[in-house]
């Protein structure tokens, strides 16, 4: 499969401190690259460079063969989703989702119909006229997701988007993300510090540590890499289970 996104030799320093070192990877259409990494490993910088919000010191970013670096963020058709949903408080849920279409001056009737369909798909139809502060954390994140999806992004960049949600809502959102990404064939780069989340949402996997990205050819390789800590976690749960079985 040919790559939709191809990144080569991406390097970035802040005040002489290297944040990204020679990053290289490819991403095919419809794939979800789940990148695992601890805080400060360079995840956010990588996403911001891809979104056009930061400039790299060196390297190339090609999208369908086109050099992306000179393209401003508004023309990249790549949406960056933060940990916070960042809904616009002066707009209703409906208008938040419609935002990208209004900016693109899509005829009102067409835009409204698209928003209604997407709101129904995200189980938000009954909240359409509410203000963002009237929604729960999970609902806000769904609106944020809808606001990104409506413009049919070529690439979705997710920066620990469910990090602030409680465990149950987070699991629900992961399932929703999976369902919608498959349905709309969305290509995304999903960064997280949670290995379980990475395994749930990813179709391909990477590990970013001190600015160096390692990508894995299979889930097995990802799980077996000691840096991901997945083996240690599995052992922990197996020990717990064995102890529980042995304890009368």
């Amino acid at each position, binding site marked *: 499969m040919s790559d939709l996104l191809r990144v080569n030799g991406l390097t970035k320093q802040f005040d002489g401190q290297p944040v990204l070192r020679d990053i290289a990877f490819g991403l095919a259409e419809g794939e979800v690259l789940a990148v695992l990494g601890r805080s400060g490993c360079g995840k956010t910088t990588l996403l*911001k460079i891809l*979104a*056009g*919000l930061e400039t790299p010191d060196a390297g190339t970013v090609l999208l369908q063969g086109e050099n992306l670096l000179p393209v*401003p*963020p*508004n023309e*990249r*058709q*790549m*949406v*960056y*989703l*933060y940990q*916070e949903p*960042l809904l*616009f*408080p*002066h707009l209703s849920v409906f208008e938040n989702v419609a*935002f*990208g279409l209004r*900016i*693109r001056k899509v005829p009102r009737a067409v835009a409204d119909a698209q928003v209604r369909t997407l709101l129904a798909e995200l189980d938000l139809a009954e909240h359409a006229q509410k203000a963002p502060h009237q929604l729960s954390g999970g609902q806000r994140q769904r609106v944020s997701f809808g*606001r*990104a999806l409506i*413009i049919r992004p070529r690439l979705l*960049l997710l920066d620990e988007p469910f990090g602030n949600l409680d465990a149950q809502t987070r699991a629900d959102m992961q399932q929703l993300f999976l369902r919608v990404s498959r349905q709309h064939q969305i290509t995304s780069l999903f960064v997280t510090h949670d290995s379980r989340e990475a395994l749930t949402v990813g179709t391909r996997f990477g590990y970013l540590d001190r600015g160096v990205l390692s990508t894995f050819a299979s889930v097995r390789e990802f799980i077996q890499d000691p840096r991901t800590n997945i083996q240690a976690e599995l052992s922990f749960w197996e020990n717990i289970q064995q102890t529980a079985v042995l304890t009368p």
Partner: protein
Amino acid sequence: MRSKLLTTLLALLFALPFVLLALLAVAPAWRFPAALPAAYSLGALRDLVAADNELLAGLGRSVLLASVVAVVATIAGFALARAITRAVRPGRWEALSYLPYALPPVLLAVLIQPFIIRLHLSGSVGGVLLGLLLIAVPFATLLLRSFWTQQAREYEQLARTLGCTARQALWQVLLPLAWPLLRTALFQTFLLAWFDFGLTNLLSVGKVRTLTVQVFTYVGEANAQLAAVASLLLLLPPTLLLWANKNALLRKTE
């Protein structure tokens, strides 16, 4: 019962100066030790509508000056606050913004007067405007600094990736987000310019007679009735602004 009495007493104390002003405005001759004016006349208030009335002209001048100061200072403050946030050493620039407050406005006027004269702006509305902006712009900058947080930056970046140009991100996202604070900045810089006497009087060299300057003149001339009428006019725009902003002000105290 006790708290009700206290509230009434406080309300009376608050209202008393306004009642006195209203009485003075309609009393052509109210001499000590009379408790109330001997005669009442609406003459001074009626004169306000005369075409050549200096008070009304002063009101117009004050409204114009304070409005221009409020709008220019708020716009400049918004842009400067953003620039300071993104500067290499924002703390230094912020400290610099406090400098105009190290001096009383009248002393600031004394210091800038030579420059105003060299710019041929002495005694002109432009000169007074420049002087007032020197106080109002740093004030608005400091006030609006609190808007430019990391979250404001994230909102802006999100808007850009959703398809906004820098200008669209400003108009469609940042300005609506900042509006409550911008409204406060407009209101406060308006009041700052509206009530200024020392700086305006010095830089205008008696030629730009704003309403505040006229109040002081009438008080100096012991013309109590005209001073009272001018003071009532002086209270009018801030009262209207307070009334228009009451929802926002009350919300803040909740």
